[in-house]
């Protein structure tokens, strides 16, 4: 199973999208259930750190319910839902930015105490190293960060990611490979301590 993405290429997936566009509640519910995990990964890749993932997921789910009837092309569903997700994350970022300007913020909690969705609830089953890698992945440029996080979602193939991002499969493959290399370099730099300024400059060139 390809996490609802490849499945959605089949007639069954398309008919579900069609039914959802017609406004059938059960189809909308099922559609959301099939797609919400990768939506969460997109939000994770784009959201500001201090915004809770659950809040954004609720925003996206609400937008899906309210506006899917306006979608005219079933094949555009996934890119459309990705755009909705990115817009939700960016809108939250703008609000958070305004809030920061208007109020004196309390000090940001230490990263080791906080989940990456902005909540203080570390998952015991996930190692510290895993949390650290995800935190480092969030520092990657957007073009590498998004495909790399999507690839880490169960069942997301190069093809599914390529369709979602509207890019060729070969581009996705290259970005994932390059993203892994950058992640390794960040991790190694972290283990060595802060990189000397001249080394950072040399790497940037």
């Amino acid at each position: 199973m390809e996490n609802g993405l490849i499945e959605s290429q089949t007639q069954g997936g398309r008919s579900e999208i069609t039914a959802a566009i017609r406004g059938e509640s059960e189809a909308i519910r099922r559609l959301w259930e099939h797609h919400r995990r990768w939506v969460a990964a997109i939000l994770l890749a784009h959201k500001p750190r201090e915004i809770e993932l659950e809040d954004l997921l609720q925003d996206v789910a609400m937008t899906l319910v309210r506006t899917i009837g306006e979608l005219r092309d079933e094949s555009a569903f996934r890119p459309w839902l990705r755009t909705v997700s990115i817009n939700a994350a960016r809108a939250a970022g703008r609000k958070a930015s305004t809030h920061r300007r208007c109020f004196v913020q309390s000090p940001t909690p230490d990263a080791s105490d906080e989940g990456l969705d902005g909540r203080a609830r570390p998952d015991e089953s996930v190692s510290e190293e895993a949390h650290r890698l995800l935190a480092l992945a969030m520092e990657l440029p957007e073009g590498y960060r998004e495909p790399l996080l999507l690839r880490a979602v169960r069942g997301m193939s190069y093809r599914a990611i390529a369709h979602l991002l509207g890019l060729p499969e070969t581009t996705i493959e290259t970005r994932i490979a390059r993203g892994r290399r950058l992640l390794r370099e960040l991790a190694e730099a972290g283990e060595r301590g802060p990189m000397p300024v001249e080394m950072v400059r040399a790497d940037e060139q």
Partner: protein
Amino acid sequence: MEEIDRDMLISRVVDDQATDADWAQLRRLGENDAGVWRELAEAQHEHAELCRAVESAIAAADDIDAPVEAGVQRRFAQRIRVVTTWGGWAVAATLVLAWVSAPADFRGAGAGILDLTPDQAIQRYLDEGRRTGQVIEEIPQRILIETRPEVNGEGLEVIFLRQFIERTHVRTLYRSGQDEFGRRISVPIKFEVRLSNPL
């Protein structure tokens, strides 16, 4: 160039996408530089760890359901607004529709319907209606008409209204009117309504 190829090869192996040719190339690389196997092991480990971290972070999504009830209420409210903006003749139109559109033929669909309970029959009506496009949805709110205590004193008897939204297609709409002699007549309605999402 070689560095990119190396990263790509390792990435393909991590993602279980490596071909025989990729493996052959990787072995050749490994013969000259054993460090490639260490890199491969690290990449696989990091990918597994990242998957665990991402899956843990996005697990929150499993608790978020689509608020379809809110959507149904909103769409229903929109439809009511549309009907309202069409004006008073819309009420007459709904009555006249019954005269000008063909009555539903339940003879075929009703085969065996006597064997069904009322709830089963309604479910069948919904399923069949959605399939054919005649039934859009049931309005989730049930309108309370009356409640009274059960005769045996246990609980309440509740009388309520269930509503269903249906779709039909007609060539002409009529409104009720009167001719010069005061007799009731049906007058065809000429209108141009452009709705992006009509009923």
